[in-house]
């Protein structure tokens, strides 16, 4: 899912970089003191997740954890993912510096979407719903990122069916694994560290804590 240097046309690079810059600005603008450590932890998790590989057919895919970052961070997922991608590019050679903008958009936009779609469920409802919402966020974000990456490759002139087929084939198993992991982590955080899941403005009302 990390698109390498020299694959995309300049137009696509710019088209991907603009939303990334906008998203990072919004994320930084909304950042407050309380959430900085949270952003750092999720950024570190995203950075390391790329080293956990799941072999799929001829290629291999790795954990992404952008769904988790989105659910926990909201818009701050953009700066968190940008920093992690920059370090992955510099230290591991994944992706590239010129494709940083595109890759950030590809991975962070679905994260933010997942925040709006699923974060309420993880925060407020019962454990089963929280798990389901976490799983949907984890799996959905990976699949959406796969589709965005295919779209970026296709606009540079590759046959859509081939690219999307490859990327989806690689990412469906990852989406399943990641859905399970994100669901479990969401449930775990909800019980152990519920304040991690609450964004700045989220209401403090949280009496529903099943114990016993």
């Amino acid at each position, binding site marked *: 899912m*990390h*698109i*390498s*240097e*020299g*694959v995309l046309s300049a137009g696509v690079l710019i088209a991907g970089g603009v939303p990334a810059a906008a998203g990072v600005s919004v994320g930084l603008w909304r*950042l*407050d*003191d309380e959430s*900085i*450590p949270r*952003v*750092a932890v999720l*950024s*570190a998790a995203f*950075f*390391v997740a790329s*080293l*956990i*590989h*799941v*072999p799929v057919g*001829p*290629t*291999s*895919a*790795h*954990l992404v954890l952008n769904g988790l970052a989105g659910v926990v961070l909201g818009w701050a997922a953009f700066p968190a993912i940008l*920093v*992690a991608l920059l*370090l*992955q590019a510099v*230290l*591991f*050679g*994944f992706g590239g510096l010129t494709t940083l903008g595109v890759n950030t958009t590809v991975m962070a936009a679905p994260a933010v979407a997942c925040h709006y779609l699923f974060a309420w469920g993880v925060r407020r409802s019962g*454990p089963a719903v929280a*798990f389901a919402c976490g799983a949907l966020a984890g799996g959905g974000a990976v699949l959406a990122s796969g589709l965005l*990456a295919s779209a*970026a*490759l296709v606009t540079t002139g*590759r046959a859509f069916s*081939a*690219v999307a087929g*490859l*990327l989806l084939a*690689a990412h469906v198993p990852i989406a399943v*694994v990641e859905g*399970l*992991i994100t669901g*479990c*982590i969401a*449930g*775990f955080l909800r*019980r152990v560290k519920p304040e991690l899941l609450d964004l700045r403005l989220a209401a403090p009302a949280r009496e529903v804590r*099943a114990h016993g």
Partner: protein
Amino acid sequence: MVERRCHVGVAAALAAAVWLGAPAGARAHGLSLFAWTEGTTIRGEAYFIGGGRVRNAKVEVRDASGRRIGEATTDTEGRFQFVASRRAEHRFVLATADGHRAECIVRAADLPASLPGPAVRAKPTTPPPIPATRPMTQPASAPVAGRGEFPAALRREIRQAVRRELTAHEQRTRLRDVIGGIGWILGLAGLAALLRRRRAGQGGREGP
């Protein structure tokens, strides 16, 4: 009850992820490509960074200006070869359909002087240079390994040893990179916190 089950679930999922990752941990998805010359033949290997060969992949061959001059295909070991017909720069580009790409360059100086220069068209079936005709007039800068002076077996040994060293080195540096990267993230977070605090302090009270 529910709590315990979820703990077990997290542990199982992480264990599964690590277990799945273990055999392929070496199979990162950065691509690497390198090539060397043996006489007029350019040989190369393509592999995923961290290990794992790139099988049956098309490698494009281009000249210095980026014009396509041919194509090679990797075998099941990730190796490919291309017979040079001109003593010119060769660029090898490997791009997989899902957006990974690697490139490497063989310089003109690494090819035998017996080949015609870039401007001249050459016959496609140029035989390897005959060393007896000009052993002393070779340019001094010509690399030794490219001259075929090592026996093939020795060359293979050297290549394998270098590969083993490289792989081990990559594994070591990877761990260091992971730790370094996390350090960077923590440092940036600290910096962000510091900047915010300073700005808040300026707006609030006026020094002691």
